[in-house]
């Protein structure tokens, strides 16, 4: 394996770890790399110094400095990419369906008729 390739694979592995630690997924939502291909982020960061550093050694995210740096650099960007991915949109819909399963739908006209509204406050 060429050193260039092994560096790339290390960077990809590190980035995957960072992204999935930042957005790890839950019962409904996929972890980051299940929703978005890591290559998309690599392309987006396009030779950023941040990526170069990831090629050097395995990242230790328990170090506060490392973690804060990842959040600072990736923060807002990955949120937009994640929540506009098909997988995240689908999962949000599924979650919504389940969350609203037991909520009763009311009839708006019936609700309007319930208003015992006799005050004359409007000057038409």
């Amino acid at each position, binding site marked *: 394996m060429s050193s260039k390739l092994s560096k790339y694979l290390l960077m990809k592995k590190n980035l995957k770890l960072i992204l999935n630690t*930042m957005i790890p997924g839950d019962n409904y939502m996929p972890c980051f790399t299940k929703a978005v291909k890591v290559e998309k982020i690599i392309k987006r960061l396009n030779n950023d110094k941040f990526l170069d550093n990831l090629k050097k050694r395995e990242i230790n995210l328990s170090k506060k400095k490392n973690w804060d740096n990842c959040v600072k650099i990736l923060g807002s960007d990955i*949120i937009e990419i994640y929540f506009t991915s098909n997988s995240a949109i689908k999962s949000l819909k599924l979650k919504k369906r389940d969350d609203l399963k037991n909520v009763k739908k009311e009839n708006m006209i019936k609700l309007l008729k319930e208003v015992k509204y006799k005050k004359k406050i409007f*000057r038409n």
Partner: protein
Amino acid sequence: MVNEKTDILIIGTGASGAASAWNLSKLNLKITCLEQGPLINKKKYSFNSINREINKLNDFNPDPNYRKLHSDYPINSDNSPISIANYNAVGGSTLIYSGHYPRFHPSDFYTKKIDNIGSNWLFNYYDLEKYYNLNDKMVGVSGLTGDPAYPKIKNLLPPLNIGYSGELLAKAFNKLGWHWWPSYSAIKKSKKLKKGIRPTAVEMYLNKAIKNGVIVKPNSRVLKIKVSSKNIATGVIYLEKNKKKIFLEASIILLAANGIGTPRILLNSSSKRYPKGLANSSGQLGKNLMLHPLGYIEGHFKKFLATNEGAEGCALYSHEFYETNKKRGFKRGYTIQLLKSTGPIESFHYLKKFKKINFGNSFFKNLFDYYGCTIPLAVICEDTANKNNCIQLDYKNKDSSGMPGIKINYKLSKNTKKMLSHGIKQCKKLLKTAGAKEIFAFGPVRNTGWHLTGTAKMGRSKRNSVVNKFGQCHDVKNLFIIDSSIFPSSSGVNIASTVQAVSLMISDYIKKNLTKLKKNEFKIK
């Protein structure tokens, strides 16, 4: 400089400009619309798009100082608690507005007479009703007939779904015995798309006007209006994107650049004969700025209510506190609006701002405690005119063409402060009744200066007003202002519907008096 010629020139292609362009397009005349912004493909800003939230955070942010696009002009709001929100493109601010589309109340047209505050209009609701109806038909307004707050409004499209949050809130309104009604929205429901379609001024009017032969020139910024020695507007100097300066000669000029843009052009058209700005012998141009101060109240609920879905701007509203009630300690009143909460991206940014979300294991827990579980309400306060609330040209901050920007000087009146505080208190009571576990409120909200009124107010006399009841400038008779600058009072509701109805009424007047206007015979009744 290149010379061009047209019969009628309309400056601005937003809500008012588009309506008049269509209304006048049936005449056999050359009509040209100049727009300082570009023509944007609808796919780029569609509010159905999953990119809606991202758009708002980038080029479609309502704050011109944040966007800083080529078509924007700087607006310095350092002397105001409220900053200006707008959009400069073909279609104007209707590209990014919410589509909430109520009419003014009949009482809004004579606040001075009935409540001894503000100024009376020179026409009333019933004079405007025919134009409201025509506009509703052109736009396609959803709503429900029978609201006790208004005279009967007919021919509405079926009302939009008020959603789970609307139902919860409706029950709370009922418990308190307060007025509420499903919103009037410029949003058409479509079975095919499952969601609503919100037309912009382009779909409402402009495309139809273009079919009738109206010429729309995007990226064309008007710098000055030129006037002859007989006080007749002769045309405008405008700048194309490639910086080419053109003099466009016109018989009749209509200004539709909104409550900030219109006085900006008139002030920038000052000359030796008009040192205070064009059409400003009264000294009222740029003064009396009204903004609809807004209070924001957010109720947190323990369960998911899908509050991030539904009508973009307002699902239902209450006019319980709209009219004056002496016991409240202020005059006039406000609307309570049920808003749509934010999607996941905006929710994240909001929580981040208040340090309530962290990446890592707690990420989704933090997010889902908020996302879809909050009911946001807005209190839209009626503002009253004050000559110290004004706009000025800002020579220190210029736009991409070198034209001065705008400086806002604005303070909330005592009346408005009391109104805002009352509104926030009532909304807290409402959300508590609805079962909110936590309530968070503040006001006035800064970036909410959408509804810009009063800066070229209408009146009978040229001594204290800029235009007459038909938007015709007292000083320059073939110059008409057809946007919200001419409103003498602000009302307590969103203004788009009234802006367009007024624009249709003025253009009807121009149509009826066209022969005289073209001959520059201006003594017309």
